[in-house]
């Protein structure tokens, strides 16, 4: 049994190309440069005022970002857990209520379809958040199971509050009980009489929370947070997707569709990627019951690895945009840069890159061939790259419980 509920909120107005989020009346006021883009069909700010101030809000004070466009699915019913455990490559059978875990899922060939998080909201009731639309795949995966799958993307308003002072800002805004909330924990609480779910999760590598509530409470939630700034207690800035891109690469989080081609959108053979090939072998659990792609991944596990998505620090100050990678200066071509940023806090070019292995080993040297412009004239240079096995940037306060009040 599978039920799908059509959302009353997605009545489409033909004149409205992009959907306003429940926070839009406030976002519109804060977004000074009107640099909009579409994120899952929602009108989303790329930048609010200046990228640098938004970036430093995340790294030095506190940032707020509208998460509503993220795909969200409510999974419940007697077979909910079996369904999820057969869907994803990770063993989620031990995920306790009020806990969150990071997951990826594959097609039959063991190639990654998407990544996301599973929230165990209440006993036997889950929320799956994903980067891309997954309803088709979820329904296909539910064949023969007594599970209810409801897309709730539009029924849940969500904000990410991230940065060193995130805990202090939320406490000042009136949230109680966050001191004991551990990383990947969930707290069901109230703010001014309405229900808010707080999870200690994020995409920045720093201390941070995500707030989830009914869209009818969206503006009240927003005002409560911004009130902290207005009262002169803590600084707080809205951030757009461009600033998020910088901190997620610093923190080593991958972006399906940007860092690797997802299996569903792959047409050419060999252009999709397995979890091993994107550095997520650690989430694959072969000891749990059958899951989609298990046999393909078991076969792949025994073969020498051919390529991997790696975190790459690139020397110099020239941005290695779309650069080819070589196993030596002017050597053999072994890969490409997928996404890259300049990290202000580390003063380095950081990138996600797809690199070929040789005989199961990473190349000893990796060089990027960088094309850049000087006053509209193209130049080329070479920069040596270093693979980082750990996130480029993280901070102990990300996992300290209780968090420091600062």
């Amino acid at each position, binding site marked *: 049994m599978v039920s799908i509920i059509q959302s009353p909120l997605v009545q489409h107005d033909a004149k409205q190309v992009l959907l306003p989020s429940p926070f839009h009346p406030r976002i519109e006021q804060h977004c000074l440069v009107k640099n909009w883009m579409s994120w899952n069909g929602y009108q989303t700010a790329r930048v609010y005022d200046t990228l640098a101030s938004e970036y430093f809000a995340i790294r030095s004070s506190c940032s707020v970002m509208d998460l509503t466009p993220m795909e969200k699915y409510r999974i419940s019913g007697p077979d909910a857990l079996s369904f999820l455990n057969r869907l994803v490559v990770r063993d989620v059978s031990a995920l306790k209520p009020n806990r969150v875990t990071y997951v990826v899922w594959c*097609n039959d060939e063991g190639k990654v379809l998407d990544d996301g998080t599973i929230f165990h909201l209440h006993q036997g009731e889950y929320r799956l958040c994903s980067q891309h639309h997954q309803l088709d795949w979820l329904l*296909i995966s539910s*064949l*023969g199971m007594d599970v209810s799958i409801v897309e709730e993307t539009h029924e849940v308003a969500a904000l990410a509050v991230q940065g060193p002072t995130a805990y202090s800002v939320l406490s000042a805004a009136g949230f109680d009980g966050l001191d004991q909330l551990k990383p990947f924990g969930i707290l069901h609480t109230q703010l001014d009489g309405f229900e808010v779910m707080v999870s200690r999760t994020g995409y920045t590598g720093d201390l941070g929370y995500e707030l989830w509530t009914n869209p009818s409470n969206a503006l009240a939630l927003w005002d409560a947070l911004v009130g902290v700034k207005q009262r002169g207690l803590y600084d707080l800035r809205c951030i757009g997707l461009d600033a998020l891109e910088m901190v997620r690469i610093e923190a080593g989080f991958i972006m399906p569709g940007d860092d690797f081609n997802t299996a569903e959108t792959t047409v050419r053979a060999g252009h999709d990627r397995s979890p091993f090939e994107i550095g997520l072998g650690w989430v694959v659990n072969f000891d749990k*019951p*059958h899951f989609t792609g298990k*046999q393909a991944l078991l076969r792949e596990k025994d073969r020498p690895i051919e390529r991997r998505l790696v975190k790459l620090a690139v020397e110099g100050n020239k941005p290695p945009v779309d650069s080819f990678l070589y196993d030596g200066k002017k050597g053999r071509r072994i890969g490409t840069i997928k996404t890259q940023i300049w990290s202000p806090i580390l003063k380095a070019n950081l990138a996600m890159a797809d690199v070929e292995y040789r005989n199961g080993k990473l190349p000893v040297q990796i060089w990027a061939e960088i094309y850049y412009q000087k006053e509209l004239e193209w130049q080329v240079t070479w920069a040596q790259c270093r693979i980082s096995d750990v996130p480029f940037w993280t901070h102990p306060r990300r996992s300290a419980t209780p968090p420091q009040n600062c």
Partner: protein
Amino acid sequence: MTSAASKQVIIVGGGHNGLVCATYLALAGRKVQILEARDEVGGGASTTSFAEGYKVSGLAHILYSLSPKICTDLKLETAGLQRGAAIDTIALDRDGQHLTLGVDEASGAGLSQQDRVAYTAFKQEFRNYARTLEPLMMNKPPRLKDMDRTDLLTLGKLGWKLRFGLGTRSMREFLRVGGINIYDVLNEVFDNAQLKAAIAADAVIGHHMGPRTPSTVLTYLNRLRWEIHGQQSLPPGGMGQIANALSKAAKSAGVTIRTGAKVQKILIDAGKAYGVQLHSGERLDAAIVISNADAKITFLELVGALELDAMFAQRIHTTRSRGNVAKLHVALDSLPQVSGLSTQQLGQRLLIAPDMRYLEHAFNHAKYGEYSEHPLLEITVPSIADPTLAPDGHHVMSISACFAPYSLKQGWERQRESFSDKIIAVVERYAPGFSTQIVARELLTPVDIEAQYNITGGHWHHGEMTIDQSFMMRPIHGAAQYDTPIAGLFLCGAAAHPGGGVTGIPGHNAAQRILAMGAGL
């Protein structure tokens, strides 16, 4: 798990293919046990009593496709197999201008000399096409990726037969007509409407297809290929006699057969089948499990989607397997009278298919979940050749009626009698007084066939035999070479290549595949 049990081969379902597979494996020294849910083995090859003293072939009612190689290998004649006398097909005409369609010759008052010549040439040409596909039949269908030597050899033989067996002209013609519909082809060749319809009937009976449906040349060739090996007949004692011979051959090869043992679950651990659980709760260990059930029952019920990859389960789920034929059994107090037909002729295979428009219109109803207003009928009166099937002087008639969709819009419960009446009214037009001769009748709709024979959708062939569900895509790619994604689990029924019909070939091919793989040793 004892070592003896672990060496055991369990076959889920004792249909004709299960029996064939079991016997081959037993002859090769394997210890084989068949678990059959019904009280009798044979599956679609059965004889049933539908009224006191009246017996008839339960599902399949004409023997035309039992592989001669299997008959020889399994010594089925020693085991009592009787084919019965060869019969022709007679297409009935309301004005008595019936057509007789033999293997090479057609005759009938209304048939022009031109059509007679064309018929002989057509049958020879199309039998040559069927012969070309022969290398594909008694082997596992070749994979197109990662072929082994057997696959290369099969494809090599196919290519050779296509190029040098047929010759340039015939090969070109075969490639032209292979994927198209029988309607266009027959219109190119013949003038006589009744002749065209009688040939087209062979292409559509048992399928969700009208004469204009693409792939109908392929289904016709599938039926026609058996003329290479012999003629159609009505076996004495009904099709159950074939099942008895297969069962006897299986037992004398050492196969254990348990009837009334319905399998509830195929037991799987870490992706490997290790036994089965019966509805009674009893568990049986096995080195390998072979399923004679259709693909949906095997994978979605007995294995369960949780043990499979999501898209594999989905692809099994979306295979087309809704039956479209109802079976009417009629007990008669005397022999029906068809004007212009002798008793001997009445004992042949009779068709009510006046023209191809009639067939296409009959099929149109099925597309929209209705039964045919004017159904295509395939009729046999087996009691003429075998009087033991009915009390003295009485007769039984067995009718396959197309089209009777599994998913009838109003549901079969309230439509069963009206469809029976419709069929009888059609026969009455050809055999006046027929309805007054009826003593008893029984209609099996696809829903009944599903329930009685444990076949999803009540589909004769365990799934449509369209080109996209044939060869290396039968039932789906990834399970088309008798082995499956579950280690130690094999398919041996009509869901596997080359599909339906009482051929025994899927069973034969599965056994060869299992022996070649050395599985379960």
